[in-house]
């Protein structure tokens, strides 16, 4: 089954970011190779008044849907303002809501995010909020009408993988909206793991952009995401610590 967020269907479950590349051309090539159909860009990096903006002009492909993000804002008020500006300038009502008042670890602020999400949904935005892997917060966001939730695997840009997997499992189990694991995915194996857990999609940026060969890395992520999803749909076997050949507790039932 295809992934659907709001009214949009996606063939690819790999979402990508546009930061940290050595050039816009390299970004374009890598993102095309990734098969990604949803790419996020920071409002602070693009020149929204300039039709020929270097980043945007390299993202002008049928394949890409644009997901502007609010990176840089520190509270709900700033986030709502930035989202409005992005909608007007980039002609999309999709917004990746990220509010991190802490510039060191870029930890998302749950209180301000919920506040902003509620306001933006009312204003007709398709809201994808970046948050901690907090199952309760995910339900609260779902209740105010966000179209997906984007819990983190580990701190943004850290490449540490899914350190929050116990909580991600709860979120996946409970969620009625797509779950996109965002942040911390540093290797294709991390992405595959997220998909095996039942995440609907992952968002990857640093691991692709900072690699020696971003195009090859983008392809590796594409394959990993597909493999992980396929495994999830094919139903993974249960893990077990030891072989289960005999049944010491119930074998007596078979005795004549």
């Amino acid at each position: 089954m295809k992934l659907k967020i709001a009214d949009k269907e996606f063939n690819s479950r790999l979402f990508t970011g546009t930061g940290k590349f050595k050039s816009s051309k390299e970004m374009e090539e890598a993102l095309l190779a990734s098969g990604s159909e949803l790419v996020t860009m920071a409002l602070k990096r693009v020149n929204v008044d300039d039709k020929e903006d270097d980043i945007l002009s390299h993202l002008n492909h049928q394949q890409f849907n644009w997901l502007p993000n609010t990176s840089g804002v520190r509270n709900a008020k700033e986030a709502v303002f930035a989202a409005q500006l992005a909608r007007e300038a980039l002609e999309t009502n999709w917004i990746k809501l990220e509010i991190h008042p802490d510039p060191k670890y870029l930890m998302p602020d749950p209180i301000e995010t919920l506040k902003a999400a509620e306001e933006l949904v009312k204003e007709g935005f398709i809201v994808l909020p970046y948050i901690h892997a907090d199952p309760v917060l995910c339900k609260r966001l779902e209740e105010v009408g966000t179209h997906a939730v984007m819990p983190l695997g580990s701190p943004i840009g850290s490449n540490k993988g899914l350190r929050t997997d116990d909580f991600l499992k709860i979120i996946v189990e409970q969620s009625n909206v797509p779950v996109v694991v965002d942040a911390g995915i540093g290797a294709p194996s991390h992405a595959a793991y997220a998909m095996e857990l039942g995440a609907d999609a992952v968002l990857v940026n640093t691991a692709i952009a900072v690699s020696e060969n971003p195009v090859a890395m983008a392809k590796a992520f594409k394959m990993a995401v597909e493999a992980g999803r396929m495994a999830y749909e094919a139903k993974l076997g249960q893990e077990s610590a030891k072989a289960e050949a005999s049944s010491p507790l119930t074998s007596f039932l078979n005795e004549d």
Partner: protein
Amino acid sequence: MRFTEKIKEYKWEQIQEDIYRKTAADVEHALCKREVNLEDFKALISPAAEPYLEQMAQKSHQLTLQRFGKTIQMYAPLYLSNECQNICTYCGFSLDVKIERKTLNEQEILDEIKVLKSYGYDHVLIVTGEANKTVGMDYFKRMIPLIKSHFSHIAMEVQPLDQEDYQTLIQLGVNTVLVYQETYNENNYKKHHPKGKKSNFNYRLDTHDRLGSAGIHKMGVGVLIGLEDWRTDSFFAAAHLDFLEKKYWKTNYSVSFPRLRPCAGGVELKSVMTDKQLVQLICAYRIFNQEVELSMSTRESEQFRNHVIKLGITSISADSKTDPGGYSNPKVNLEQFEIHDKRTTSQFAKAIINQGYEPVFKGWDKSLQQ
């Protein structure tokens, strides 16, 4: 607690002794650790770390790449005035230096902006001397809105101000304020700043607490390398950064490495830092703090700046003029310090691209600070 209190925990002589006593084992320990603390920073800036320079550079490069990617933020200084009531022994704008004094008016500022915009700049650093009557808050209140409308990001490097003034400047759209302590050695500070408001060591030292309380988006710390033993002075700057970061946790931070050259204005230097030592310091900062912006001006040479891009620097200026009016009227010669790298912005941008990095001109949006 403010830093003027906190600094009492650090005794200059003790810190200096600690640094010079660090051993190869301390350096190796610091290089292996995941969380590097101030004690490790002492080891990384110590003479014992000099044989580990390549390892430090490799680590700094990796850490910077992961956090900042293959990008370098570009900015340009915009000197508005060289009037100054202070005497600073090392500075070309010092009250006792006989140069023509100049403060730009609205039209002259617009002329400068026009040139900077034609080079592609979107982040600007406003610089002035300290002359509160002519270049004080009234002047800033008139000129900042004028400048703000042309740039995405406004930084200031002017005299320390009161907290209310900083609040006003933030409302006018100032994103970043840089104030360097020059030296954290109070006795030596007084020798180099004998006259003017700047001679008040503690008022300057308290500036970042006032900025933090005012809610500034980014602030910069640093020392003027050469006034004191650079290792000890840099430890104090790192301790200052560490203190501020924990207290004003919503603020971004920046560190800069202005290095005095021998014979600058005839001032006697306590230590002369070599290129190797500057690289050591840059790498030490990055290993100590992965998120801090490390900034470099055109004081350094072409060759040095080309290479340092990969070593941890994340923000850099080019094609700078350090005299008010210098961009639109390059003939006047009222420079604050001598520029070593004289390449044009586009030449320097090409050098960045050749290193496999993207020169970023827009890394902020004025809509993000409400």
